[in-house]
């Protein structure tokens, strides 16, 4: 185990050094992310301010600051995942078809470990910083009442960390399918895009979409539900939700590694 930890940090260090070689490129990518999120936040602002208030069934009125708080929180687990597992996008989109996966199978380490440890994306920090800034700015508004207690604080920390693990699990699962499908990038994009829909209170959607967002592609479980509790819109027990989030993320991660391993055995190099 210690061998892998040492190997991981050595590999990540190399990745960081290589990214820092091209500081201008890094800055452009980071600014692209910031810009993307600023536009998304402005879109939400323009929508919500065009009406007096957003009355959500079963929860009451959400104002722009509360929705902003939800949006800011959604960016944290997404940003953490972005930092560590971006190479999975390349596997899903092109590394199977262009044959560059061959070398990963030749290495004396598990293929998934080799892939994950290859890339560290500092651009993820831009998402985390923008998300944290939104949490602070929106959280300080008079209309946003945060329910501070031990359970809720633990829940938010758990949702950030295990939420990132859950997102990674989904990415591994779908990226692994590329070994069979050759190109699973578009499918991964569909799954990933579902995060967009939990940036609004989930109760605005009908029951069947809520079931998908909480139970099947569970971004609602790690983003909407914790924030609804933290903002006082839900009386769900935070400790129970912590348990569900931890359990779901571990099960999903284990399942995704299983699927990845299974699919990797079907890998055929380009030209075979």
């Amino acid at each position, binding site marked *: 185990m210690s061998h892998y930890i040492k190997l991981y940090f050595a590999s990540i260090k190399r990745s960081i050094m290589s990214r820092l070689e091209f500081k201008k*490129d890094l800055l452009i990518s980071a600014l692209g992310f910031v*810009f993307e999120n600023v536009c998304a936040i402005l879109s939400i602002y323009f929508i919500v*301010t*065009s009406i007096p208030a957003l009355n*959500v069934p079963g929860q009451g009125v959400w104002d722009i600051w509360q929705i902003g708080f939800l949006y800011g929180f959604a960016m944290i687990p997404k940003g953490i995942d972005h930092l560590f597992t971006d190479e999975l996008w390349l596997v899903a989109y092109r590394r199977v078809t262009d044959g560059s996966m061959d070398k990963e199978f030749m290495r004396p380490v598990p293929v998934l470990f080799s892939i994950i440890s290859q890339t560290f994306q500092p651009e993820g920090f831009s998402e985390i910083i923008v998300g944290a800034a939104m949490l602070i700015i929106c959280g300080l508004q008079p209309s946003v009442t945060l329910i501070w207690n031990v359970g809720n604080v633990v829940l938010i920390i758990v949702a950030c960390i295990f939420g990132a693990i859950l997102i990674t699990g989904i990415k591994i699962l779908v990226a692994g399918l590329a070994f069979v499908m050759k190109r699973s990038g*578009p499918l991964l994009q569909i799954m990933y895009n579902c995060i967009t829909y939990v940036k609004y209170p989930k109760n605005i959607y009908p029951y069947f979409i809520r079931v998908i967002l909480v139970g099947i592609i569970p971004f609602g479980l790690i983003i909407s539900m914790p924030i609804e509790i933290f903002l006082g819109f839900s009386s769900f027990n935070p400790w129970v939700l912590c348990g569900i989030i931890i359990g779901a993320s571990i099960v999903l991660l284990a399942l995704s590694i299983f699927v990845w391993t299974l699919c990797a055995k079907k890998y055929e190099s380009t030209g075979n």
Partner: protein
Amino acid sequence: MFKKYKPFFKAGAIDAFAYKAAILTWFIITIVEVACTIFLWYAVFNNSSEAVINGFAFNQIIVYFVETNIVSFVCFGGETLWLISKEIKEGKIANELIKPISLRGRMLMTTLGIVGMHMLIIGLPLITISLVVFYAIGFLTFTSIGALLFSIFSFAILVTLSIILFDAVDYFFGVCCFYTTSAWGINLAKNVIVSFLGGAALPLSFFKFGDVDLSVVINYLPFAGMVQNPVLALTTTYSSPAQYLHVVHTIGLAIVWIIIIEVINHSFFNHAIKKVTVQGG
């Protein structure tokens, strides 16, 4: 003139058809996105005391987003930025620069090939079906056959201009790749600008900070001509001369912007090729 660029048009069309899975994926994504958008706007309109928000009734906003999704997919299917970036990275750009054809012309014809194929197999069928459905269920209405034909004709012109306009902007950002290897970041910024300021994310009339209406300015930028203007030309119920004049005005504006951006692109490219460093070059 056209003859020497024809192979690129054909190659673009064949290339677009090769990725049928991408088209199918877009279709699935769009269905899910439109479903979520409908519920979001349903909640928004449910919470408004007004039946019309910023010039849009609920029916109109649904029509707007459905048509916007189709137009965006068709018009933004070009790969000019990626092609330029790839040729710089692989060093092929050096060969391209000595060929007796213009890089801009080649990129435009490749885009027209890709987009033409998208329009043929996705755009036209979906736009036709969606319009028939919207007219049938009363989400869209027309005052006369002449007005209906005008909307279709003006839409065809504006969509063509939108494709050229988008490709000109894509080319501009592609030339930026001569200065940086971060094509991914540049592409992200371009997509966000076009989608946001073009009205794909939200109709521009919603862009208001209190009493300050930003759409007054944004409507004059080139981006409105890429998404919003073609869609509005198609979905407007024409009942006054001012509406017809407005469409003519948007067509003129799009042409002016194409000329301006192409002039900028020409100068920018001439500057960029002095800077280019290809691998091994």
